[in-house]
């Protein structure tokens, strides 16, 4: 059921990233890490569809935080909405991440808004682990202090070398694997599609598994329109794959169930 969500605050987090807090107790109470809300932004005018956003954080008093990047017409309008504005939210939608046991080291691999989408996971993980954050440059690094406060170690890779490791975030994954040969680890990924494909392949090739949050352009958000699909393995199909709806069957998928084209 769509819910009214009043904007409590809506401010700049860093550069084009913003943080909006909605008061939506019904959704906040049900939210599990990795789920998303489908937001009908107020005053959208001739832009009519809802926009999906991962839930960054929820509090027991009914607050729900979304961290978003201003990229187009909808997020531009959202950025202008003052506190007190009411939007219409559907959620929590999608399948959540699995929270690990306290003897497992959670390793979160994130890029873009991926750190926002996994912050609640870090908070709720019984064992504190490592965030491996990839970005083009230092401008795109968000929530690093918040992850540290949640007890996570933060390691960074940037394409331009402006902060941390100069290169790809997946190279940091190899380091973590080398450093912890005996430790039980649980991998999570959320970020750009290419990064998730690289991570998924690396994990499955190494005989490991993980959970990847794969999303795609959405429309209905509840599994009805088949807009948001990605390829997953399907042995019962002659092609070896089928299109799965990320809003309904995902966004979180087991890495070994995802179809990696070059391998097949």
């Amino acid at each position, binding site marked *: *059921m*769509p819910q009214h969500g009043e904007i409590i605050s809506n401010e700049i987090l860093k550069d084009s990233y913003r943080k909006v807090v909605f008061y939506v107790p019904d959704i906040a109470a049900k939210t599990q890490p990795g789920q998303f809300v489908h937001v*009908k932004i107020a005053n959208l005018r*001739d*832009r*009519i*569809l*809802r926009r999906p956003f991962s839930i960054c954080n929820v509090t027991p008093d009914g607050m729900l935080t979304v961290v978003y990047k201003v990229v187009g017409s909808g997020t531009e309008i959202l950025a202008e909405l003052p506190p007190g504005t009411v939007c*219409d939210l*559907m959620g929590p939608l999608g399948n959540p991440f699995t929270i690990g046991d306290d003897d497992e080291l959670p390793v979160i691999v994130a890029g873009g808004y991926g750190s926002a989408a996994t912050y609640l996971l870090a908070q709720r993980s019984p064992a504190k682990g490592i965030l491996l954050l990839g970005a083009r440059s230092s401008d795109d690094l968000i929530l690093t202090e918040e992850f540290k406060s949640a007890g996570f170690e933060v390691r960074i890779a940037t394409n331009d070398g402006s902060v941390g490791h100069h290169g790809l975030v997946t190279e940091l994954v190899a380091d973590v694997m080398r450093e912890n040969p005996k430790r039980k680890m649980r991998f999570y990924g959320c970020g750009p599609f290419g990064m998730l494909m690289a991570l998924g392949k690396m994990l499955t090739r190494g005989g490991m598994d993980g959970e990847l949050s794969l999303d*795609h*352009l959405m*429309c*209905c*958000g*509840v*599994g*009805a*329109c*088949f*807009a948001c*699909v*990605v390829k997953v393995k399907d042995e019962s*199909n002659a*092609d070896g794959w*089928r*299109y799965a709806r990320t809003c*309904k069957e995902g966004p979180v998928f087991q890495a070994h169930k995802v179809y990696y084209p070059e391998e097949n």
Partner: protein
Amino acid sequence: MTDLSIDLGKIQLKNPVMTASGTFGYGVEYADFFPLDQLGAVVVKGIRMEPSHGNPTPRVAEVSSGMLNAIGLQGPGVEKFLHGEEYMPFLRRSGATVIVNIWGKTVEEYREVAAALDADREGIAALEINISCPNVKEGGVAFGTDINLASQVISAVRGATSLPIITKLSPNVTSIADFARAAEACGSDMVSLINTITGMAIDVRTRRPKIANVTGGLSGPAIKPVAVRMVYQVYKAVKIPIIGMGGIMTGEDAVEFMLAGASAVAVGTAIFIDPMAPIKVIAGIREYMDEFGIKQVSELIGAVKV
């Protein structure tokens, strides 16, 4: 008391509001939002003989007051639709009036799907023939834009089932009234219109089409005036009932289609914006009837004053 029940000849509905095929999944996706039997009918996503992958992504793009889609009719195939728990068995239990949208890549496939559904017809109120898909045998020309092919499809389906059939007309033709007349002549019990209007959108930064299929179908409020005009033209051309759709967001939009000549309406893209839209449209029609003292909803059909 306002009476919303409507008689479509071969089927009777408790109210004139349906869901548009492809925008309401197979019903199960929205069952948490409201009981499906509150709708006049649930029209499910297009079904063919075999399972199909559908098109590559991106499959949708938002445009001014509407959207383009080229989903490519991803679906489970008729066997799974009839027997898979989340499809027809679920719909039968829901008590909804179910209309099954069908398609094929050849005339023969249309006939086969209709026959398969006819053989297992419990809970199916009617078939809606989607003729807007390309014919593989004729090199991809859409059945719905070639009047001979369209007639062949409708006749083939007519021959395969005694279920009521609805022909869903494509707006991508010069004279939609001609296609409606052909449908009536081939034994179609109703016509529904409009399907999406072919469109295209380009990302000017990357210079690439916004959807992978290059072109897609335009739907939503942007197409409503075109749809109302076509319903009006078809109403003057045929005697069989018309199901009108295209950009309906509110009860008043639905009334507009009925005044143009529709006996029933379908809500599509609006569901993506508000899953409760079909229920709100029903309530909106009722409010309009109360305001204007209309007792039976059929009084609205074709009542535009020109």
